[in-house]
C-alpha cells in the first residue's frame, strides 16, 4: 500500500461528505423518514439532466440548483400524493422517486448528444477523480469538491446550531411544537431542503449510495448507543468519520490480499459503516443484543442463586435425624437446572462467601444463612400479603416470583403493614432475628 496525497484528499472528501450527510440523517432516522433520503437522492436525476440540457455545461452551480430544486420538489410531491391521494407514505415515496428517476434516465438518453452524463456516476460517484479537479485557495491547490463539501458541512452545522431547539421539539413531538408556535410542517420542509442540498452536494463526488448510507447508517448506529439527540449527533459524526477513513483504507488494502489493485472507495465506506452498525447491534451498552443477553443471564443467575439459598435454608429448617448432604446432583434435581447452570450458581455463591463445599456436599455459611433467612422471610411475607390483601388462592408461585425483586425498606414496610405476622398462610413460621 502506498499512501499518496491523492489518498489524503479522497479521505478528506469522504469525511466531509459523511459528516454533512450524518447531520440531517439523525433527524431523518428519528422522524422515521429514513427512506426520504433514499427517495430524494434518486429523484434528483431529472434535475441534473435538465440543468445540463438548459446550460449545456457541467457547471457546478446550475447543476446544484437544478438538483436541489427537484430534491425539494420530491418531498413536496410525496407529501401531495400522500395527503391528496391518501396513498400510504412509503408507497407514495416509491411512486414519486421511481417516476422521477425514470424521467431523468429518459432525459439523459434523449439529450445524450448534448451532454456527457453517466447515470452510473450518480449512483456510485467518482471519489477517486475528486483530487484531479482543483482550484487554488491561497496558493494551495484544493479539490473543488472539498471546498464545496466544506461549505455544505458548515451550513448544516450552522443550521442545526441555530435551530437546535426547534428541530428537537418538532422531531419528537410535532403536536407540542405546533402549539408552541413552531410549525412542524415548515420545520419538516426546511429539513427536507437540507437533505436535498446535502445529497446533491455530496453525491457528485461520492455517489448517491454513499449519501444514503451516510445519512442512515451512522445515525442508526448512534441511536443504538444513546438516548439523547446531542449525543446521537456527536456519535453519528464519529461513526461517519471512522467509516470514511477505514472505508478508504479497506478499499486500498483489502483487494491486494486477493490479488487485485483496489476497488470502489464509496462502496467500501458504506460497507464499513454497515460493520459499525453490526457491532452496535451486537455490543451496544444496554441496547445491544449481546448486552441484553448478558443482562438476562445475570438475572437468571441471580434468581437461581437466591432459589438455591432459599432451598438450603428450608432444608435446614426441617429437623432431620441425619444431616443432609447437598451434592451437585441433588441441587440440579431440586432446581431443575443442567450441570453448567448449577456450576455457575454454586460458583457464584461460593465466590460471594455464602456457600461452602465440604466432602459431604454444599452447605450454607453463616453469612449465607443470614441472606437465605431474609429471602425466606420475604417469600413468606409476600405470601401473607397476597393472601390477606389480594385474596389470591395460590400464593406460593406468585411469591416465588416476587421475592427476587424487593429491597430492604420495602420489605420492612410490608412487614409493618401486615402487623409483623408470625406464620405464613401455610402455617410455616416466618423467620425473624
Amino acid at each position, binding site marked *: 500500500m502506498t499512501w499518496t496525497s491523492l489518498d489524503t484528499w479522497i479521505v478528506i472528501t469522504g469525511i466531509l461528505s459523511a459528516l454533512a450527510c450524518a447531520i440531517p440523517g439523525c433527524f431523518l432516522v428519528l422522524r422515521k423518514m429514513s427512506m426520504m433520503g433514499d427517495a430524494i437522492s434518486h429523484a434528483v436525476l431529472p434535475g441534473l439532466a435538465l440543468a445540463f440540457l438548459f446550460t449545456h455545461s457541467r457547471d457546478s452551480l446550475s447543476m446544484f440548483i437544478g438538483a436541489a430544486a427537484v430534491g425539494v420538489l420530491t418531498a413536496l410531491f410525496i407529501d401531495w400524493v400522500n395527503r391528496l391521494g391518501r396513498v400510504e407514505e412509503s*408507497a407514495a415515496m416509491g411512486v414519486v422517486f421511481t417516476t422521477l428517476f425514470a424521467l431523468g434516465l429518459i432525459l439523459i438518453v434523449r439529450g445524450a448528444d448534448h451532454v456527457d452524463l453517466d447515470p452510473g456516476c450518480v449512483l456510485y460517484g467518482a471519489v477517486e477523480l475528486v483530487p484531479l479537479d482543483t482550484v487554488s485557495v491561497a496558493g494551495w491547490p484544493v479539490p473543488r469538491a472539498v471546498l464545496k463539501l466544506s461549505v455544505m458541512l458548515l451550513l448544516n452545522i450552522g443550521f442545526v446550531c441555530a435551530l437546535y431547539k426547534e428541530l428537537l421539539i418538532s422531531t419528537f413531538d410535532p403536536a407540542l411544537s405546533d402549539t408552541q408556535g413552531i410549525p412542524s410542517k415548515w420545520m419538516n420542509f426546511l429539513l427536507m431542503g437540507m437533505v436535498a442540498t446535502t445529497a446533491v452536494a455530496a453525491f457528485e463526488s461520492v455517489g448517491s449510495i454513499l449519501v444514503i448510507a451516510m445519512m442512515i*447508517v451512522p445515525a442508526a448506529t448512534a441511536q443504538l448507543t444513546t438516548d439523547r439527540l446531542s449525543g446521537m449527533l456527536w456519535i453519528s459524526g464519529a461513526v461517519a468519520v471512522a467509516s470514511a477513513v477505514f472505508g478508504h483504507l479497506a478499499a486500498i488494502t483489502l483487494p491486494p490480499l486477493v490479488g487485485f489493485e483496489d476497488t470502489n472507495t464509496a462502496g467500501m465506506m*458504506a460497507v464499513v459503516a454497515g460493520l459499525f*452498525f453490526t457491532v452496535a447491534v451486537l455490543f451496544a451498552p444496554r441496547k445491544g443484543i449481546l448486552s441484553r443477553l448478558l443482562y438476562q443471564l445475570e438475572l437468571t443467575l441471580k434468581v437461581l442463586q437466591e432459589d438455591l439459598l432459599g432451598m438450603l435454608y428450608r432444608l435446614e429448617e426441617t429437623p432431620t435425624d441425619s444431616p443432609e448432604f447437598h451434592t451437585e446432583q441433588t441441587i440440579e434435581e431440586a432446581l431443575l437446572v443442567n450441570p453448567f447452570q448449577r456450576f455457575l450458581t454454586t460458583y457464584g455463591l461460593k465466590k460471594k462467601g455464602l456457600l461452602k463445599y465440604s466432602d459431604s456436599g454444599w452447605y450454607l455459611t453463616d453469612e449465607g444463612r443470614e441472606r437465605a433467612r431474609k429471602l425466606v422471610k420475604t417469600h413468606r411475607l409476600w405470601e401473607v400479603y397476597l393472601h390477606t390483601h389480594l385474596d389470591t388462592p395460590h400464593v406460593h408461585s406468585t411469591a416465588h416470583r416476587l421475592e427476587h425483586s424487593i429491597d430492604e425498606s420495602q420489605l420492612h414496610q410490608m412487614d409493618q403493614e401486615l402487623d409483623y405476622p408470625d406464620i405464613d398462610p401455610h402455617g410455616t413460621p416466618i423467620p425473624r432475628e
Partner: protein
Amino acid sequence: MEALQDSGTWEQILRVVSLSDYNTRVVILGTTALGIACGLIGSFMLLRKRSLMADAVSHATLPGIAVAFMVMVAWGGSGKWLPGLLAGAALSGLLGMGLVLVIGKYTRIKEDAALGIVLSVFFGLGVSLLGLIQKMREGSAAGLESFIYGKTASMLTSDALLIGAVAALSIGVVVLLFKEFCLLCFDQDFAAAQGFPVGKLDVLLMTLVVLVTVIGLQAVGLILVIALLIIPPAAARFWTEKLLPLAVIAAAFGGLGGALGAALSAVVPKLPAGAVIVLTNSLFFVLSLIFGSARGVLVRFRQQYQLSRKVGRQHLMRALFECTEDEHREVVSFAELLACRSWTSSRLRSLLGRASRDGLIEGSADGVRLTSAGEEQASRIVRNHRLWELYLINYADIAPSHVDRDADRVEHVLDPATIRRLEELLKEEQKAAPKLSSPHPIERSASS
C-alpha cells in the same frame, strides 16, 4: 419526435402493434408478463405497508450477482450464465430482506431505517465487488452493470420465457393461496388464531417478491423494477376497496404499462424501454389519482361538495323553521336569516337560490317562506335535531346549553334506522311534549 416524420413510421408502428417483428414480440410479451406478476405481488406489499421493501430487496441483489459471477469464474465458467447470476441475486435479496425484518424486530431501529441500512450497505458491497470484477482479467464485467439499468430492448427469447415462467408461477401461487394472503394482509393475528402458518405464508410472499424482483432486474434494471412493484398497485387502489379487484386491476395496469411502454420505445428511437414502462405506469397512477372511482380526487371532491350542499340546505331549512315556529307568521326577512348562523350573505343567497329552485321555499315581498314541501322537510330536519339533542341531554349527560352545537354536527348524518331507535329510546320525553319543542331556548329569537 423526428422519427415520426419518416415515411416508414406508420409501417413501423403497425409492425410493433401487430407483433410481427420477432424481437419486438419477445420484448413486449416479456415486459407484459413482468408487469402482470409485479402488479399482482405488489398489491399484497402495498396492503402490508411494505412497498419500500422492494427497494431494499432490489438493491440487495447486487452483491449476490457479483459473488455469483466471481464464483462461476473461479470454477472456470464464463461468469455470465444467467440462471447462476439470478440465483445469486435471489439469495442475497432474500438475505437482505431477512436482515431488514431481523433488525426491525430485535433492535430499537425502526423498519424504515432498517430498509435504508440494508439497501445502502448491500449496494455498497455490490459496487465494491463490481469494482473488483472490473479489474479481473476475465473481467468484461460490463454486462453486469446492465442489471442496474436493465436492457429491455435486448431481451432474448430465453429471458422472456424465464419471465413468463416466474409470472405464471406467482399467479398460480397467488390464485391458490388467495384467501390466506388476504388474511395475512388484513388481520394477521386472526389468521394465526385460525391456525394458518402465518410465518410461512409471510416467507412465501416475500420469496415471491424476491423472485419477481430478480427477473425484473434483468429486464428493466434494479431501480425501475421497484416502480413496477409499487406504482400499479398504488394506482389500482384508487379504483376499489376490495383485495381481489385490487390485485386484478394492478396486474392489468402492470401488464398494460409493460406492453405500451415497450411498444412506445420500439417505435420511438432513443427511448430506454425500462424508463418508458415506468413512466407509462406513472401516467396510469396520475389518471387514477384524479379519476379513480373509489378514492380518486374528483370523486372525493364531489362527495365533499354534495355533503356541504346538503348540510347547507338543512341549516337553512332549520333556521327558517325555527324563526317562524312560535310566531304566527310565515315570512322571514333576509336580515333575520343572516343573523341566525355565521354564514356570509353571498353564501346565504346561493343557498336560498338553490332551495327555491328545488321548490322548498318561495320568495315574497319582504322575505322568504317555506312551501308546503319545504315545511314538511324542515319539520323533519328540526325533529331530528331535537331528538338528537334530547338524546345527548338524557344519555350523554351534556348540559342543555351545549347540545345545540353538538347536535348540529351529527344531525346531517342520521339515517332513518338511527332515528327510529332514537325515537324508541326517547318515547317518554316525546309523550310529554307531542310537538317536540326545543330543549333549550333558541338564542336568536331573543336577539331579533
